[in-house]
């Protein structure tokens, strides 16, 4: 276990504890990591990313690692936190991450839906959406992964505020989504966007909103298969690989499709453990094994991006 002070990476944590540990990582590794506020949530909680950078300048080629956009998928936020510690621990020791960070910055957003995450700890463990209000409807929240401007309000999303896949009144209506979109567009030099979800053990690439093949599908499929193979090498966890629309279902308004359509070629979605035995309630003793294997997949993708900058 990688514990610093009293943060147990093999356990689930409150939003406050996660934010504190992000601060602690930035404090422990000031020349590599910094905690950056990129916006706030509907209920006015800060949204923090950890920026890992070894170079000067604000527009280095960059990788975005997104987690926790669906709040009940706890292994996603937990894996992101383990990954943050792994990056700072291994920089200067592991050749791969050291060379990646020599060339690129990495931005890690462990909790993309802070209000939803707090709600899973306080009211409803199985909450998925944001917590925004809809005048005229008793129902709360938008599915933040149907709210991006990628065939917004198309198939696989609902216009009903009470639906779990409600796309929202308009694209980027959720301040949590708009904060990320604005940050990435302002930066302008992101080459990779990876969104961590659970569960089903899938590694997918665009498109979700159409069954049509993405222009880079062959390359993305090859990279994804190599990543899934690396992931499986640790403890045999099997992943299925393919485009989202053909692997699970068509879904409009997703983060990864938005990234791809906005020039970020290396765009992937992970659905982490498991295949349904525990579903969203993956026991805490599987956090570190899940994070360790996921890291091997992430590293494979990031190395490919490092070697194929465009």
């Amino acid at each position, binding site marked *: 276990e990688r514990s610093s002070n009293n943060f147990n990476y093999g356990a689930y944590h409150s939003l406050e504890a996660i934010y504190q540990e992000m601060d602690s990582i930035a404090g422990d590794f000031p020349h590599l990591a910094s905690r950056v506020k990129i916006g706030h949530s509907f209920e006015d909680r800060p949204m923090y990313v950890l920026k890992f950078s070894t170079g000067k300048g604000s527009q280095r080629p960059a990788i975005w690692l997104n987690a926790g956009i669906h709040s009940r998928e706890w292994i996603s936020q937990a894996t992101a936190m383990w990954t943050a510690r792994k990056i700072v621990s291994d920089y200067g020791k592991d050749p791969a991450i050291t060379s990646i960070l020599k060339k690129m910055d990495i931005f890690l957003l462990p909790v993309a839906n802070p209000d939803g995450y707090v709600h899973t700890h306080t009211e409803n*463990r199985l909450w998925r959406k944001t917590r925004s209000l809809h005048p005229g409807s008793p129902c709360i929240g938008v599915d933040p992964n149907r709210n991006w401007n990628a065939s917004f309000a198309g198939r696989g999303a609902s216009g009903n505020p009470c639906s779990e896949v409600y796309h929202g009144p308009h694209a980027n209506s959720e301040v949590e989504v708009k904060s990320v979109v604005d940050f990435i567009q302002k930066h302008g030099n992101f080459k990779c966007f990876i969104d961590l979800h659970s569960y089903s053990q899938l590694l997918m690439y665009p498109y979700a909103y159409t069954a049509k093949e993405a222009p880079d599908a062959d390359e993305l499929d090859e990279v994804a298969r190599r990543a899934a193979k690396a992931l499986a090498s640790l403890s045999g966890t099997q992943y299925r690989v393919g485009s989202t629309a053909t*692997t699970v279902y068509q879904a409009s308004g997703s983060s990864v499709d938005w990234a791809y359509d906005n020039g970020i070629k290396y765009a992937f979605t992970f659905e982490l453990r498991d295949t349904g035995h525990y579903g969203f*309630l993956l*026991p*805490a003793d599987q956090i570190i094994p899940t994070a360790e294997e996921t890291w091997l997949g992430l590293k494979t993708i990031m190395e490919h991006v490092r070697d194929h900058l465009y």
Partner: protein
Amino acid sequence: RGKFFGDQVFRINVRNGDEISKLNELVKSDNLKLNIWKSSCSLGHPVDVLVPAVSLQPVEFFLKSQGLDYSVTIEDLQALLDKEDEEMQYNQEQ
């Protein structure tokens, strides 16, 4: 925090288009308060649904009467949630 006493998660295997439409009919009935955990539009890939305790009987009746193949993947959701809570409490004490 809200409780899920008696709630279960069903895994429903749909084998053809007809079964998909039957499942959609089931999922759309508001009064059952079903919550889709994992959906899938491709045949051969199961759909996971959280079934509240009060809807167990009608849902099972529907699935059996329509010949839909299903299994219970989580029999006692609240027990898993309680265990998760205990682990978090323990960790915080640590």
